C-alpha cells in the first residue's frame, strides 16, 4: 500500500512537471510517449510489458539526479488499437533501436526492467543486426527478479532481486542463441496421451487444475465428443417444443 501511494504520488508529480514529455508522432513505430528527466549521461529506461512508463517514475526520479533518463511507452500500452496488429519481441527491440537513433544517442546505457530485461536473451536470431547495433552504442543493463516456479511469492518472502548486468560481448553472444520462448507451439514437448479427452485437457491447460477422470460425466463426454453439447442442446430444444405443443 505504501509503495502504491509512493508510486501514485511520484507519477502525478512527474506527469505534471515533465516538460519534455511529448508524443513521438513522427516515428513509424509506436512509442506514443517519451519522458525525459534530469541531466547527465544518457540512460534509456525500458519498461516491462503491462507496466508502462508511469511505473518507472520512482526509479526515473532517483536516476535523474545523476543521469539524463529517457524512457518511452512500449507499443500497445496507450493505443489499444495497436494490439490489433500482432507484434513480436523483435518488433519491440527494433522500436528500441529506432528510438535510440531518433534521439541521436550515441552510447546510451539501456536499462530494461521486468520483461524488458529478457530481451537480449529472448531476441530471435533474425534481429542480430538490431542488437549488434544497439550493443555497439552503449551497454545494457537488465533488472530481473527470481520467483518461485508456480507463482510470484509475496514481497516479504522474496529475498532476491538481482540486476543482471549485460556487457556488449554478452549481448552479441546472447543473440546468437536460439530464442526458447519464440518457438512455435508445435515444437513443445507433447506427452503421449491416451485419448482425446486427455489431449483436449492438455491443450486447454486444464490438467493442473482440473482432473478429467474425476470430472462430471457431462464434462468428460464433452471432451470426448465435441459435438455432444450441440446435439444435446438441439434435443433439448426439440423436446421443449414438443412439450409446448402438448
Amino acid at each position, binding site marked *: 500500500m505504501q509503495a502504491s501511494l509512493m508510486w501514485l504520488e511520484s507519477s502525478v508529480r512527474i506527469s505534471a512537471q515533465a516538460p519534455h514529455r511529448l508524443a513521438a508522432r513522427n516515428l513509424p513505430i509506436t512509442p506514443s510517449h517519451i519522458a525525459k528527466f534530469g541531466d547527465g549521461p544518457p540512460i534509456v529506461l525500458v519498461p516491462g510489458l503491462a507496466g508502462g512508463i508511469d*511505473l518507472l517514475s520512482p*526509479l526515473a526520479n*532517483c536516476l535523474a539526479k545523476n543521469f539524463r533518463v529517457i524512457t518511452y511507452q512500449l507499443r500497445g500500452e496507450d493505443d489499444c488499437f495497436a494490439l490489433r496488429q500482432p507484434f513480436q519481441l523483435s518488433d519491440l527491440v527494433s522500436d528500441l533501436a529506432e528510438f535510440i537513433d531518433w534521439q541521436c544517442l550515441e552510447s546510451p546505457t539501456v536499462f530494461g526492467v521486468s520483461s524488458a530485461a529478457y530481451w537480449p536473451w529472448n531476441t530471435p536470431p533474425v534481429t542480430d543486426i538490431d542488437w549488434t547495433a544497439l550493443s555497439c552504442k552503449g551497454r545494457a543493463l537488465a533488472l530481473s527478479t527470481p520467483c518461485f516456479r508456480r507463482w510470484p511469492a509475496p514481497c516479504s518472502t522474496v529475498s532476491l532481486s*538481482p540486476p543482471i548486468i549485460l556487457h556488449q560481448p554478452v549481448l552479441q553472444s546472447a543473440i546468437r542463441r536460439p530464442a526458447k520462448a519464440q518457438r512455435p507451439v508445435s515444437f513443445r514437448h507433447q506427452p503421449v496421451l491416451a485419448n482425446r479427452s486427455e489431449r483436449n485437457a492438455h491443450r486447454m491447460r486444464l490438467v493442473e487444475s482440473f482432473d478429467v477422470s474425476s470430472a462430471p460425466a457431462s464434462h468428460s463426454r464433452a471432451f470426448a465428443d465435441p459435438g455432444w453439447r450441440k446435439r444435446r442442446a438441439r434435443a433439448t430444444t426439440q423436446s421443449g417444443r414438443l412439450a409446448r405443443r402438448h
Partner: protein
Amino acid sequence: MLVPPRSLAVLRDGIDDSQYQPLPNCGHLAFVTHPELVAQMVHTFLADEVALAAI
C-alpha cells in the same frame, strides 16, 4: 523477467563480467518499491566507467 533462482544462477554463470546484487525484501517491482536502492546499484555499477558524483 521472472525466473526461478536456479535459472538465475545459469544466467549469472553464463554472463561474463556480470554482477549479482541481491536486494533483500524486494519483490518483482523493486524499481517501484525500492527505487533509491536500485538507482544506487545502477550508479555504483556505472561509476567505474562514467565519472559521476556520488549519490
